[in-house]
């Protein structure tokens, strides 16, 4: 059974207050015991309060620690996200940069840097298959510019670039070498096939007309082609193609010469 403390306290206080018990030794002892008891209670109270406030401090500290931890986690997550985004955009920029550094902006064909890169790649691995290189120059291109303006000159370059690229197709790579010069790398096993392909390219360009309002621009190309030979270097190969092109130019253009 539980003790009813309120009732017990009241009983004791009544006994202590009763005048008839005043001088009884038991009453004196009870009074002393009551005082000690009261003191113990107030001590207990203080202890409880102290303990509670310590607990409060600990809770607060724990809370601020966990708040700081949460904040750092949030910052870290965000930093990672932002960094990743920067990395993605850098990667994207690199891709764009590489593209612009290897593609001719006007014709969108591989530029001289890229075609040289391809040529050295093919050169390193050409032992098995054939390799031939053709240098193409648009005939009298300066006249097109002078007569119709640079805008038309650019249009002709773009149109011829597309036409020649479609002829070369999967047989090789064509790039803009500079100005009105183009370079073709072909890996046909048979040189005759390479020559035939370039001959058909020449005749298609010759048949092509570019219409500007009521005027027609007629063009043709001169081609110097050469096949890889033992002990060739990239330079010797290119210079043979170049000399072949020069020989065509001096003999009247719109034709092909093998160097």
């Amino acid at each position: 059974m539980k003790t009813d403390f309120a009732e017990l306290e009241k009983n004791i206080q009544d006994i202590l207050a009763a005048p008839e018990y005043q001088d009884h030794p038991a009453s004196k002892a009870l009074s002393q015991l009551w005082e000690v008891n009261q003191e113990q209670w107030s001590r207990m109270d203080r202890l409880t309060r102290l303990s509670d406030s310590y607990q409060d401090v600990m809770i607060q500290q724990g809370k601020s620690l966990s708040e700081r931890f949460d904040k750092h986690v949030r910052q870290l997550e965000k930093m990672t996200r932002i960094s990743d985004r920067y990395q993605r955009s850098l990667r994207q920029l690199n891709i764009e940069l590489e593209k612009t550094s290897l593609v001719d902006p006007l014709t969108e064909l591989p530029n001289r840097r890229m075609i040289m890169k391809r040529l050295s790649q093919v050169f390193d691995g050409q032992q098995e298959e054939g390799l031939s290189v053709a240098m193409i120059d648009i005939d009298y291109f300066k006249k097109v510019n002078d007569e119709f303006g640079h805008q038309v000159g650019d249009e002709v370059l773009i149109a011829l670039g597309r036409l020649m690229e479609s002829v070369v197709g999967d047989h090789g790579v064509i790039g803009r070498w500079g100005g009105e010069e183009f370079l073709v790398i072909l890996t046909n096993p048979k040189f005759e096939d390479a020559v035939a392909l370039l001959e058909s390219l020449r005749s298609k360009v010759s048949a092509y007309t570019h219409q500007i309002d009521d005027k027609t621009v007629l063009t043709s190309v001169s081609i110097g082609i050469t096949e890889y030979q033992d002990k060739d270097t990239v330079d010797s190969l290119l210079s043979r193609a170049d000399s072949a092109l020069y020989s065509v130019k001096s003999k009247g253009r719109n034709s092909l010469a093998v160097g």
Partner: protein
Amino acid sequence: MNDLLIEGTASSPTVRGEWKSGTLYMEGDSYPENSYELYGPMVAWVERYLKERSEPLTLELTLLYLNTSSIKVMMDMFDEMEERFQEGRQVAVNWYFDEENERVAELAEEFKEDCTFPFKIIGK
């Protein structure tokens, strides 16, 4: 003089603090070797301004690329501003970007996300 000037380099932006108008300008890329050291005076300037003045504080930012430690510095600064804003201070960020470079706007959005104070991302 309470104005602040940190000269820009190829890898760090020019930082200019105008005490009188309560404006901090940052312009350029930010990938210095030690962001915490470099931006220490800037963070201190902002803290001091928020403590000593009651006028609004505005950050005018034209930042393109930030390395990770610079991102951390900016986030700490924005967090500090957010805290002051919650206490009733007027603070604002204007982040400018070149309209041809949308990526910068997306990045600024990431920073803006946790800020409830006025944070404008302005194309120009």
